[in-house]
């Protein structure tokens, strides 16, 4: 019996259909397939196919507890799935309210997944159809109809009527009742800046007038519209303008640089979009298929705040390690290093080497995971499967296995460098210039050799050299990551053993510590304040926090596909974003 069964009596044909559904499971994964893989789950070999849209899925697969911020999004996701549908939860029993309880729960491990899929199949074949199915409803799904003018999106009201600006009939539009982050901002009028001498100069930020160089003065945005309306009324009185003038109606609309304004539509990509990391919400304003405006935000990023009473050192290590499921070892290492720096201790050389090997192994796995995500976005079926399977093998491989896997990885890299169309797909896209806010592979793709590992003594003794490319585009970022993967293999080989970082006993001390770790996405820094052995203050500085801010300006005026490639090439981890 499943909670999302479809209404219907159980007849012979229905039984056969239910059996078919049990064999044809399409899962939509929360928070995303990349998190599932980073946790060591091989979804596809367990017999679940990954669906691109909830409309085509019949299983909602929850990997780990759902972050509170994603709750509403998960509810919407569930509501979009077609009945019969089931919820399959791994490693957590609670589902966001008011979702029904998970139909199948299992441990967060591959064996748990396999076992869960078996139970899911039998649940489907037994309970895909039943009588007396009730509708699923939740506050997040309430649709409010509001009316807006097709030409003046700022005109929004609750009743039908005609537009006060142009007189057109207002068209109904759906508005979600749940508070969208930007909804409040729509009503507040942001100030805009205009030149006292040239009223046609209007811009969103302060500056000087391009015509006369005077400083721009702020005014309320609404006043421009009133001006426009007055102007239009004057034209209407003019007599022979007895028709609706498209020039008048459209002149306040934003213009694209190519001079052909199309209908602007605001489209959300995320938080569960197939080609982007789960938890990342990209809101694109599209002008045709070009991106006019972009906004990127992380829904799952933490604030980095600690409980008021602080946290024990060992707990803090676990806390930081769990904060980013895409790079847990690096954050564990960062926490350990910082605590050791605060305590003034240093583990012996062998442990340090082993830790570096562990970090490098995670780098390889992370880059492979990125390749799989990127392959999914650009529709490269072979790479998706190959990179994903290698990632799963590398994730917990010991030194011998790493060496055994090394030829396969080298072959993958060679093959990618020869793949036709891959170069044309990425070259020249999302070009960046060297900038101090850039970190990690993104920075090194702009020709900057900055790498936290080159400041690390142990790394240097292992023969580390930083790689860099200087084109600064998506292709360069791809190449940097491929080169790094190769170097990581060499480092692991030189280190000779893999040791997971474990916190040393620092005792009851007070003081401050600071350390940096080159995570797969770039350098992460942590400053800690300790008070009697408890962590009372932590300041985390992560690469994705900085890279996320770069998304909006980078995407503007790109074609949609190129824009998404740009975002993917940055390898953002929404989890490590500090808000």
């Amino acid at each position: 019996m499943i909670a999302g069964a479809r209404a219907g009596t159980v007849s012979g044909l229905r039984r056969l259909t239910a059996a078919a559904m049990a064999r044809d499971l399409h899962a939509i994964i929360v928070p995303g397939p990349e998190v599932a893989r980073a946790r060591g789950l091989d979804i596809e070999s367990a017999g679940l196919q990954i669906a691109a849209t909830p409309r085509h899925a019949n299983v909602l697969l929850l990997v780990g507890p759902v972050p509170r911020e994603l709750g509403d999004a998960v509810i919407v996701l569930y509501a979009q799935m077609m009945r019969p549908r089931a919820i399959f939860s791994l490693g957590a029993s609670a589902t966001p309210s008011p979702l029904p309880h998970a139909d199948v729960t299992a441990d967060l491990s591959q064996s748990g997944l396999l076992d869960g899929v078996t139970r899911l199949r039998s649940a489907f074949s037994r309970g895909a159809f039943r009588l007396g199915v009730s509708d699923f409803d939740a506050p997040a799904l309430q649709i409010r109809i509001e009316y807006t003018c097709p030409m003046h999106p700022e005109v929004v009201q609750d009743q039908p009527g005609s537009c006060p600006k142009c007189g057109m009939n207002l068209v109904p539009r759906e508005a979600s009742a749940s508070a969208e982050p930007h909804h409040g901002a729509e009503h507040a009028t942001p100030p805009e800046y205009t030149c006292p001498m040239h009223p046609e100069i209007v811009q969103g930020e302060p500056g000087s007038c391009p015509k006369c160089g005077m400083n721009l003065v702020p005014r309320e945005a609404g006043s421009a519209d009133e001006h426009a309306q007055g102007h239009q009324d004057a034209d209407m009185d003019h007599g022979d303008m007895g028709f609706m003038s498209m020039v008048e109606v459209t002149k306040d609309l934003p213009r694209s640089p190519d001079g052909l304004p199309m209908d602007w539509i605001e489209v959300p990509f995320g938080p569960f979009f197939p080609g982007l990391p789960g938890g990342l919400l990209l809101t694109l304003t599209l002008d045709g298929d070009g991106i006019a405006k972009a906004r990127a935000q992380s829904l799952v990023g933490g604030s980095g705040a600690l409980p008021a009473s602080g946290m024990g050192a060992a707990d803090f290590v676990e806390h930081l390690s769990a904060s980013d499921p895409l790079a847990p070892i690096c954050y564990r290492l960062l926490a350990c290093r910082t605590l050791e720096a605060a305590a003034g201790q240093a583990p012996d050389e062998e442990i340090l080497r082993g830790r570096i090997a562990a970090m490098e192994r995670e780098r390889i796995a992370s880059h492979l995971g990125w390749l799989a995500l990127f392959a999914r976005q650009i529709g490269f079926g072979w790479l998706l499967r190959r990179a994903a399977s290698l990632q799963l093998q590398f994730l917990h491989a010991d030194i011998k296995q790493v060496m055994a896997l090394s030829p396969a990885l080298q072959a993958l890299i060679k093959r990618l460098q020869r793949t036709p169309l891959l170069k044309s797909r990425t070259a020249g896209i999302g070009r960046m210039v060297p900038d101090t806010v850039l970190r990690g592979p993104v920075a090194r793709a702009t020709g900057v050799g900055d790498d936290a590992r080159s400041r690390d003594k142990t790394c240097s003794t292992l023969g580390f050299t930083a790689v860099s490319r200087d084109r600064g585009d998506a292709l360069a970022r791809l190449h940097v990551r491929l080169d790094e993967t190769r170097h990581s293999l060499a480092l692991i080989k030189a280190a000779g053993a893999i040791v997971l970082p474990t916190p040393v006993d620092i005792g009851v001390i007070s003081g401050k510590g600071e350390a940096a770790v080159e995570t797969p996405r770039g350098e992460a820094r942590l400053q800690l304040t300790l008070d009697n052995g408890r962590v009372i203050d932590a300041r985390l500085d992560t690469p994705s926090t900085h890279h996320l801010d770069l998304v909006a300006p980078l995407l503007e005026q790109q074609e949609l596909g190129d824009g998404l490639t740009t975002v993917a090439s940055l390898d953002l981890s929404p989890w490590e974003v500090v808000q």
Partner: protein
Amino acid sequence: MAVITLQTFFIALFGIAALWFGVVVFRTSSMMRSALALLFSQTALGAMFLAMQAEFLGVLQIMMMATEMSIMAIFMVMFMMDPGGLGEMDMTHQKRLSIAAGVIGALAVSGVALFAHWGPTATVAPAAAEQIRGLGTELLGRSMIIFETAGVTILTAMIAATAVAMPVLQRKKTS
């Protein structure tokens, strides 16, 4: 007295379909529907050509119009204020005059069609394969100049249209 044959029936059927879709073009407020109605009107015409045993022309009409009208559709959506037709705005003018002109035009032409002496009607059309061969010989024989001119015209039109539509390039400013 001529007999009403199956051919007449199909000509009339597709003709009515073409007319009906033609009317829909100007009666719907959704631009997409308008463009696709025109497409189906033209497709019905193509089917009518097939009913008139002009196989090559019919298939050609059906093929060309699918692409042409789809491109029409994107322009409709681009250049209209309200492509979905939800705002129910009136996009017409001089309505009475236009209706009068349309009706009078149609009636006058039909009158000519009715009362002119068309001479004897041919009953048998050449076979389709023969038609294609004949048309090819015509195009590359007697009418070659006309055909070539048409080809050059369409090439010129393509280039001219592209040139007109291209954005004015920003010239380098000389101080």
